[in-house]
């Protein structure tokens, strides 16, 4: 293999090995999600089983024998049902809540919009892909720190016009994007072309 070719791969790997910072709230978000599930309780499972199986002196009176047998069977059944529930819960794929996603049609791609606006309190993306609706939930940007706002949202494949709306009042074109072609309404817009995934 020519040395030059190795160099490119080494350069690429070197670049990719750099750290990728996560958002400051990542750990807290994971723990919040984890706390929603039942605690693991290895000891309590063991305690139920050991109570059922531990030898004990039983004084059986003729009248209570059947009742006692029924209770033992009921307790054993409860233990088995509980164990079965725990196994099913562990095996079930996580659905709902933060994990639920609807499948996006193939003609839509997820696009990340970024705006640096240190003084903003609220940033939304409006465009011809969301009816120019500044209150559309999927297009509300989140503040990532350092005045950087971003949102990743679905945009159909094709050519679109869009803008940022800051604090519900100010329209801002995307400074990293080409300007859109028209000035029909005197407000700045940007253009985006979204390609289909190959």
């Amino acid at each position, binding site marked *: 293999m020519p040395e030059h070719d190795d160099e490119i791969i080494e350069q690429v790997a070197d670049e990719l090995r750099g750290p990728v910072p996560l958002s400051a709230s990542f750990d807290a978000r994971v723990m919040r999600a984890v706390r929603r599930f039942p605690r693991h309780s290895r000891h309590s499972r063991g305690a139920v089983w050991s109570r059922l199986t531990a030898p004990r002196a039983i004084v059986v009176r003729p009248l209570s024998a059947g009742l006692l047998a029924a209770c033992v069977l009921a307790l054993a059944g409860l233990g088995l049902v509980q164990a079965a529930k725990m196994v099913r819960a562990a095996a079930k794929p996580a659905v709902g809540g933060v994990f639920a996603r609807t499948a996006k049609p193939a003609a839509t791609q997820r696009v990340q919009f970024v705006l640096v606006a240190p003084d903003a309190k609220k940033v939304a993306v*409006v465009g*011809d892909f969301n*009816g*120019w*609706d*500044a209150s559309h939930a999927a297009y509300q940007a989140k503040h990532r720190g350092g005045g950087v706002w971003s949102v990743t949202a679905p945009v159909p494949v*094709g*050519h679109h*016009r869009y803008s940022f709306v800051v604090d519900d009042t100010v*329209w801002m074109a995307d400074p*990293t*994007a*080409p*300007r*859109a*072609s*028209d000035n*029909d*309404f*005197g*407000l700045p817009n*940007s*253009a985006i*072309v979204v*390609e289909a995934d190959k």
Partner: protein
Amino acid sequence: MLALLVALALAPNDARAQDPRLAARLDKPTQFAVNAIVDSARAAALPTAPLVEKALEGAAAGSDGPRIVVAVRHLAARMGAAKHVLGPRASADEIKAAAGAMDFGVTVRDLARLHAAAGKRPLTMPLAVLTDLLGRDVPLVTATSLVVQLTRAGTKDAEFALFQRNVRLDIEHGADPAVAATTRGRGMMLKAAHTGGRPTE
């Protein structure tokens, strides 16, 4: 009187075809006027979604009704002109992209040149790149000429994307837009000549 009767006869169809967002965000007269333009466009087999989106944009921008109607009408006219040049088989995306390019000043004649250069290949990507270049202030004549040449040379979509990306990066690093586009375009043409027009991927 006849027009009124025709309008009334069409009313139930109009009601079915109306986008509910227009009713929610436009006043009645503007809504009526926009719907009429949309219906005409539909009858002419033009895409109507861009017209609705234009009206919604105007509403979101707080523009008055007449300004919205003018904007929608102009867009319909551009799309009609684009379809006339690109032919009946032009896709909605191509018509929309062509209308966008025309709004930057690309003439019907330039559109026809581009259409001839592409032959049977779709024009969506060349038009998108052209509009992108114009949006980055590459002069109209330079941008149009480059895109026509690249299209005539058989440049594939991925190669157009690479060209656009390189031009964008050059401009972001301070290059003059015309120089960036011309230099990168020349590079693409040389590569196409060298590889005999074969795809580079």
